[in-house]
């Protein structure tokens, strides 16, 4: 008998507490903030199919060099793109290459190579150029090469940054290099915009016969507000 009344009391207590809970719930409220963040994308690369190049001899187009005009076969430059990346956000999707590989075969003094390509900000965030890392190596002699900077300035007429210098080894200059990057003075590349870059190379008389030289130039970019 005693246990029956105890169970009854317990049941009653549960019902009362439930009622109190409802009452309490009515006297509270909730405001919710839900957020979705679509992060931007920072991709700078070389626009696919934008690379062109031509070769000259002493500044004259190979086919027009006299005499004679038929020795375009002597030296050859081959340029390929790799490490492709396609922008997720770009509409329509844009593919750029992260790496350009230049092979110059049977090079000789006063042979010149001129390369043009479009540098593209394929992302959605403005990107700013911060620095370039330049290295070089003489494979034949097993020694490091250095880069000499002669000029580095912004040409307000061309609206381009211009770098002039040379790849140098202890025996002398290997090649003169001139880079003209048609970018704004602050070095910012706007999303969806392309910027023409021209590289001119001419080989010096002090470049050594039968040598193999390698070089690497890395351009670094960060988001525009970080630089």
């Amino acid at each position, binding site marked *: 008998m005693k246990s029956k009344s105890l169970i009854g009391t317990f049941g009653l207590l549960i019902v009362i507490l439930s009622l109190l809970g409802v009452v309490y719930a009515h006297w509270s409220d909730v405001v919710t903030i839900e957020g979705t963040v679509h992060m931007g994308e920072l991709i700078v690369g070389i626009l696919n199919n934008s690379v062109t190049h031509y070769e000259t001899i002493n500044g004259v187009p190979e086919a027009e060099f006299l005499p004679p005009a038929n020795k375009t076969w002597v030296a050859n430059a081959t340029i390929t793109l790799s490490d492709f990346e396609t922008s997720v956000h770009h509409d329509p999707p844009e593919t750029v290459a*992260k790496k*350009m590989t230049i092979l110059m075969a049977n090079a000789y003094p006063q042979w010149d190579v001129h390369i043009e390509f479009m540098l593209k900000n394929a992302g959605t965030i403005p990107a700013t150029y911060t620095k370039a890392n330049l290295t070089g190596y003489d494979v034949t002699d097993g020694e490091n090469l250095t880069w000499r900077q002669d000029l580095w300035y912004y040409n307000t007429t061309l609206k381009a940054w211009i770098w002039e210098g040379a790849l140098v080894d202890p025996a002398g200059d290997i090649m003169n290099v001139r880079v003209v990057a048609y970018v704004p003075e602050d070095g910012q590349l706007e999303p969806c915009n392309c910027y023409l870059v021209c590289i001119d190379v001419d080989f010096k008389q002090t470049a050594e016969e039968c040598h193999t030289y390698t070089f690497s130039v890395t351009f670094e970019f960060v988001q525009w507000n970080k630089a």
Partner: protein
Amino acid sequence: MNTRKTSLLSLSIVVLLSLLGAVYAHWSDVVTIEGTINMGSLTLSFDYAEPPSCNEYHWNEDHTQKTAGEYLGKDVGNCTAYFAENITDPHTGKEGYKKLIIVIDNAYPQYVVGIVFKLHNIGTIPIKVIGYNITGEKRNATGHKIYDLLWYDPDGDYIGSIYEDVNGNGVVDACDIEVINLEVTDSVPYQIDPCRTHKAEIDLEFKQEAEECHTYVLTVEIIGIQWNKG
């Protein structure tokens, strides 16, 4: 227990920092240009396969025509030519020679000899032959130098004469003595493409003023440069 807590904390910091690094890395970008340059080779040599040859001649009475062989068919003077200093182009592996040595024995006035040789471009870059640098000296019977020899070719066609520089002033003038007529039969410049050969000839004719029992040593350098160099 404390040690465990410290280890866990360190690990957490490492993981956190790695994540931060990854996040930072994503907000920068890199474009790379890599280049490989294989330089060519420029190697002018005398031909490995074909040795040089000497051809003797004599003039007819009125000095208008050269006939093969010495005068009256005699064998008086003697010419020997051979290549020396074997070289191999490191790029192509082709062989050639750097030097052509010509020895003329028992020469005499109006002895005419032509030396035929073949040049070979064993490199990978076309060569432009732009000229010849001709020098020499006159030695006496004991081998001592008496005079320098000077090349005289006022119109630059490589048809000229060798003079003894009697007054030692380094230029041909009235005091000097003409001893050898020299002619290079190819007009310069001319180009030799890689793998190609070019046959050339140097003709020598000894003058009446060339001295007996003396030795004339001549050096002819053939100057080749890369085809596009002015």
